[in-house]
């Protein structure tokens, strides 16, 4: 019996001994439990599974030997339309998920039966870009936390779904929204804002988990007098975007939380915002107690292609080196020393046509002829990027990094556009390059230090599904055609697949209850779970 499954057994025994078998124990989720989350693999305590961003489950009951027998265990219908992007959490037998238009719910994780359901009454004029989506909650103490489309941060009672506190972060009418799953650290709930399509001014906020009081705000565009302010031409910093719409990670030993940021606005027009446009498209190392910046690394300077760096960064240890790696939307895989923020290497993992040189620090530099033009210029990757917000995974057993790659080139057009508060501010457009080969995608297994490709599994079209790796020697992913797929993590061989009936726009997770492992994924408008017969 593996260590992970033994652990599941111990948890079940404990529940029986307490005489609450058949019901679930709602133990408080302490900050220490979050730090030690890898010690309780039966639970999925935060968006990426643990603070490292690895999206790896130490459960191995479902493995390469039996994956072909996987069956659906239960399905929860949210009865909505639109993209369903949530990664649910599971804590002591209760599953907490979210849905379109800021739904939230707690389910019996064995059966999918609701314990409570919440839906926010949103104002009628909320106009989020790219879908009325939400990617999940954070949990801490006896509350779950949700960032909302009308730019509030709210706390719900984990047992009842009742509202415990509700704070306004910013005025949604100016184009701000929250779509990400918050990150809980110590007694703080940390969120980053969406709205790079509207010429917002981005930020990352920390709130007191008990009261909702804001403890700090890190402005992702430096104000006058602050370092980096001179990376913006004229007044362009005021509407410069730089949102932070994907959940960060945290390193307790150094007390550092790492967050990524998105595109400068307007996304397709670099004219009139000359300079590097800090801290757009950056990896930020922040002190979670104060919100102070320790270091930053900018992936795409002065971006003109909407290549947000909002991909979950992953912490990896390699030969005594403390690394943080990211397969970026711009098509390069970056290895960074997280003690210093210095770049170690940048290697293409998908087709790129925008950079043929590197700058003095080894960072891929944009070629002059990659800038958008009025009539449009073909560039790879396209605006949706070589990958996007869907999570990658790192498997400490195979020591491989797995990422969903999208092979799609676009034509980028640019034209001047005046800023108007709360209105779309793209500086023109992009559209598919129909002259090239049909778009496709792949799940790629990458050697994390070298960036070399170990294997790939081709998708017939670009997909928006994230990836989960497990101690069972498996990786799970989905595709645009609706398949949820289990592959051998070592070889990329498909071991099992299930047609969910809709494109998958989410990142899978795994949990266990009463000694049985489940794998969960959101698809269409339903949350699916799978297990052994």
């Amino acid at each position, binding site marked *: 019996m593996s260590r992970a499954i033994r652990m599941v057994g111990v948890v079940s025994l404990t529940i029986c001994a307490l005489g609450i078998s058949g019901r679930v124990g709602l133990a408080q989720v302490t900050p220490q439990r979050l730090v030690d989350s890898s010690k309780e693999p039966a639970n999925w305590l935060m968006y990426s599974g643990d603070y490292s961003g690895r999206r790896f489950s130490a459960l191995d009951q479902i493995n390469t030997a039996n994956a072909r027998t996987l069956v659906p265990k239960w399905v929860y219908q949210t009865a909505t339309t639109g993209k369903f992007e949530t990664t649910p959490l599971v804590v002591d037998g209760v599953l907490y998920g979210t849905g379109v238009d800021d739904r939230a719910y707690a389910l019996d994780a064995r059966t999918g039966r609701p314990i409570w359901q919440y839906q926010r009454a949103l104002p009628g004029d909320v106009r989020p870009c790219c879908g009325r989506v939400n990617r999940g909650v954070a949990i801490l103490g006896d509350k779950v936390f949700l960032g909302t489309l009308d730019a509030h941060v709210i706390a719900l009672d984990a047992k009842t779904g009742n509202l415990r506190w509700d704070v306004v972060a910013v005025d949604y009418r100016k184009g701000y929204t929250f779509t990400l799953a918050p990150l809980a650290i110590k007694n703080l709930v940390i969120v980053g804002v969406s709205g790079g399509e509207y010429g917002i001014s981005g930020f990352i906020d920390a709130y007191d988990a008990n009261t909702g009081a804001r403890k700090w705000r890190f402005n992702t565009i430096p104000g006058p007098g602050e370092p980096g302010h001179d990376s913006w031409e004229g007044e362009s910093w005021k509407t410069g975007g730089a949102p932070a719409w994907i959940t960060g990670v945290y390193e307790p030993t150094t007390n550092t939380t790492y967050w990524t940021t998105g595109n400068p606005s307007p996304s397709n027009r670099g004219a009139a915002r000359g300079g590097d446009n800090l801290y757009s498209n950056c990896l930020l190392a922040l002190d979670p107690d104060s919100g102070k910046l320790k270091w930053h690394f900018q992936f795409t300077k002065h971006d003109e292609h909407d290549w947000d760096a909002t991909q979950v960064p992953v912490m990896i240890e390699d030969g005594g080196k403390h690394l943080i790696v990211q397969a970026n939307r711009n098509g390069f895989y970056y290895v960074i020393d997280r003690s210093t923020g210095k770049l170690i290497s940048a290697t293409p993992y998908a087709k790129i046509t925008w950079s043929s040189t590197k700058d003095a620090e080894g960072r891929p530099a944009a070629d002059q002829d990659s800038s958008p033009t009025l009539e449009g210029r073909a560039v790879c990757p396209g605006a949706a990027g070589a990958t996007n917000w869907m999570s990658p995974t790192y498997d400490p057993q195979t020591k491989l990094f797995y990422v969903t790659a999208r092979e799609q080139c676009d034509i980028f057009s640019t*034209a001047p556009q005046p800023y108007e508060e709360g209105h*779309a501010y793209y500086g023109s457009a992009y*559209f598919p390059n*129909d002259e090239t080969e049909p778009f496709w995608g792949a799940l790629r297994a990458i050697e994390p230090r070298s960036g070399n490709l170990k294997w790939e599994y081709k998708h017939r079209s670009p997909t928006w599904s994230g990836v989960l790796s497990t101690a069972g020697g498996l990786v799970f992913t989905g595709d645009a055609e609706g398949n949820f797929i289990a592959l051998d993590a070592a070889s990329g061989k498909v071991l099992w697949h299930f047609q969910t009936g809709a494109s998958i726009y989410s990142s899978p997770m795994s949990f266990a209850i009463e000694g049985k492992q489940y794998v969960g994924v959101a698809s269409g408008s339903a949350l699916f779970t799978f297990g052994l017969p």
Partner: protein
Amino acid sequence: MSVLIPCNKSSYIAFATAALLLIGLFPVPAQAQSKNPYAGDAKVAKVGEFQFRSNCAFCHGLGARGGGRGPDLTRAQKRHGNSDAEMFRNIHDGIAGTAMPAAVGSIGVAMTEEEIWQVITYIRSVQVKAPAQAAGNSAHGKELFYGSATCGTCHMVQGKGGRLGPDLTGTGAARSLDYLIDSVRHPSKRLAIGITEATKEFSQEYESVTVVTSDGQKFMGVVLNEDDFTVQMMDTREQIHMFEKEKLKSFEKSRESLMPPYDQKMLSDKDLQDIVAYLLAVGSSREAAQ
């Protein structure tokens, strides 16, 4: 049933309050206005162009001249309605049965009513004045379509014809003349490219496919749908087949269209013009819009 009209003041207030409440409960449809408040305003058209580039050009192309997916909107005759109110409805609510999404932000950003009117103002500003008319003879084009040019073997128009290629009933209203002519001369140049967005799971791309089953049967045709593990296809005899790929002896797919390229020898410029005239005539007819 008779309607009681309240006549004293207090009951009038109660009635008015109830009416207001009812209005609150049942919101008026979004297209409260049927006329574009900005019609002909060049400044608004410019603002609308920004909106168009952000929200519409992805499918409808720069300048609204049509893209790989969306119709040419500079045509005076629009398949799903020409009036301001119809265009507003099409943008606001999307068009059922097509890839056109509602302007709620599933593709691009969500649009306000004001922005939708701005886009309509822009489209009007680039719209050609006269309905598109080909120089050809549409009656002769119809004869060719179902006769010597054999288009009707694979293409259906208004319920008559084959199923292997796209139904062309509405194509004349949706595509530019250049696009139509180019598609006949070079059918493999641009097979339809499907989009996978939440609003539309797939669109048929008419890829050619040849499969050999485990018992040696060979089928040639077009792909109706496909994923990594299965394929649904129509063979050249219009039979539908559904296969699990791993059980096939062979599976070959190509983006070379099954349609032969119609060069000058097969179809003169004049005859092609006549066929295009026929498609345009059908496209602008009332039946095509149904």
